[in-house]
């Protein structure tokens, strides 16, 4: 039972990072029906910006020697820098790689997205090299015990940042003028233009927000795992994409839920015991994590392509 609860906590923490990245996939798909394959790499850039900020700007070596105020300033500035730079990167990518293809066949922007993804990974590889890079601790690690479950302060920060961003995004999209414009463009671009909505601008803002959230995701990822690698965005991006599909692509709440579910599943799969299985199957749950997640992706695509929360509303003509 203790192990089970512990895995739930771990699943929720990593799952909330998947959720943050999944939001960007689902927002972009919702508004221009493009799977932005470069989105995971924007997240990766967020981890790099965070790493650069703490090591090159704040010259962090040992966080336990920092004052509390200094540490808070570092965390906030680093997080904001990651959000801002990723947001601008998202807008830039949209402008140069997707907007010129707005009226092209759907495959064209998809290929363009893969190209951007590869380009970002190679840029990252040129900067940090091909191997994982360790980051110093961004906060002195503190363990808390709730009953028999162990939870760290970084876990709590990840959960809080994710929660705040998700609630904020949900509010933005459902209750503000720009959020309404985003939904209008998603539902009927031409009709939205006829309401006076500058469609190009709204699409750019969607990329801005989605990429900014991925930047925050990159920051909390670095905070909780203390390392990054040039292709982390590819792997984590696939999980986040699966989460977005699981929740119902285009659906924000679905992406949040999907991320948590994928995180939980990946954590709980490690329950598979580390002993010999028939047919020489790999043993140890970790070996099964990816297989289970992508099996889920396939099953959803086959049996419920609209995902958990996605629904087709009969539209009257």
């Amino acid at each position, binding site marked *: 039972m203790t192990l089970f609860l512990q895995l739930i906590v771990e699943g929720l923490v990593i799952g909330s990072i998947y959720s943050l990245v999944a939001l960007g996939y689902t927002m972009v798909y919702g508004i221009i029906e493009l799977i932005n394959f470069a989105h995971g790499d924007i997240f990766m850039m967020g981890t790099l910006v965070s790493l650069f900020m703490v090591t090159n700007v704040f010259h962090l070596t040992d966080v336990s020697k920092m004052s509390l105020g200094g540490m808070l300033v570092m965390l906030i500035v680093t997080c904001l820098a990651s959000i801002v730079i990723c947001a601008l990167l998202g807008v830039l990518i949209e402008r140069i790689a997707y907007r010129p293809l707005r009226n092209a066949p759907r495959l064209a922007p998809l290929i363009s997205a893969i190209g951007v993804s590869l380009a970002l990974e190679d840029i990252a590889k040129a900067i940090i090299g091909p191997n994982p890079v360790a980051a110093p601790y961004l906060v002195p690690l503190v363990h808390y015990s709730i009953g028999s479950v162990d939870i760290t302060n970084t876990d709590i920060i990840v959960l809080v940042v994710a929660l705040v961003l998700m609630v904020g995004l949900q509010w933005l999209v459902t209750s503000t003028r720009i959020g309404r414009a985003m939904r209008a463009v998603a*539902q009927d671009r031409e009709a939205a233009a*006829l309401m006076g909505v500058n469609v190009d601008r709204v699409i750019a803002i969607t990329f801005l927000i989605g990429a900014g959230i991925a930047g925050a995701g990159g920051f909390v990822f670095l905070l909780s795992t203390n390392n990054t690698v040039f292709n982390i965005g590819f792997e984590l991006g696939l999980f986040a994409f699966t989460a977005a599909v699981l929740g119902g692509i285009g659906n924000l709440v679905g992406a949040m839920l999907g991320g948590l579910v994928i995180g939980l599943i990946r954590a709980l799969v490690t329950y598979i015991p580390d002993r010999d299985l028939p047919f020489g199957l790999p043993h140890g749950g970790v070996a099964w994590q990816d297989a289970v997640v992508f099996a889920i992706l396939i099953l959803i695509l086959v049996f419920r392509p609209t995902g958990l929360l996605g629904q087709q509303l009969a539209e009257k003509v």
Partner: protein
Amino acid sequence: MNEVMLQLEHVDTFYGPIQVLHDINLEVRRGEIVCLLGANAAGKTTTMKTIFGLVRPRRGRITFDGQRIDNRPASDIVRLGLALVPEARRIFPRMTVLENLQMGAYTRTNKAEIEQDLDHVCQIFPRIKERLKQIAGTLSGGEQQMLAMARALMSRPRMMCMDEPSMGLSPLLVETVFETIVRIRSEGVTIFLVEQNASMALSLADRGYVLQTGKIVLSDTAANLLQNDLVRQAYLGGS
């Protein structure tokens, strides 16, 4: 006579290599109801799309209130006080009725005035008022048409263009729609109407144009058009 609000001069529109509109010349004056009649595929909707910048004319000029609009994006054009009730209504199906109306007022910022206009359109369309919280996609076809009109009014337009507002509606609803059009005009909004339902459209319009395979073949007062042999044969089912 009142001044010209909307003017199309020598407009040619193409879809790829195919010319859809040929040398369209028409004008709508302040306070008028003008209708554009034509059969399916005559180019009525293309005319509307060309006016609103959703399709670019290859040649010709379009002016609204003396300002050239044929090279501007739709979102700019509607800010000048021109609103469109598009073909097939094009409401936002997964938004509530209220949100649809708020989208109609997207270009405006004065909250008090928007509230005032919201009350006003609820008064014109009582059915809309009952359904403000409902998801728009679940409305009936007639209600969706009312909503599309209400949404267009929320921008407080000086001129409203309507593309086949009677399409797919029962005769009773068609009558309601046309009564509403007259009411909207009486409140000072100029109306440009594209219709297949020629008898209805001509009964309330001041003037009309007849479009055939992308060319304007007739233009006259509505009363004269109702008597015109070509119109009677082609659009009124008469002999």
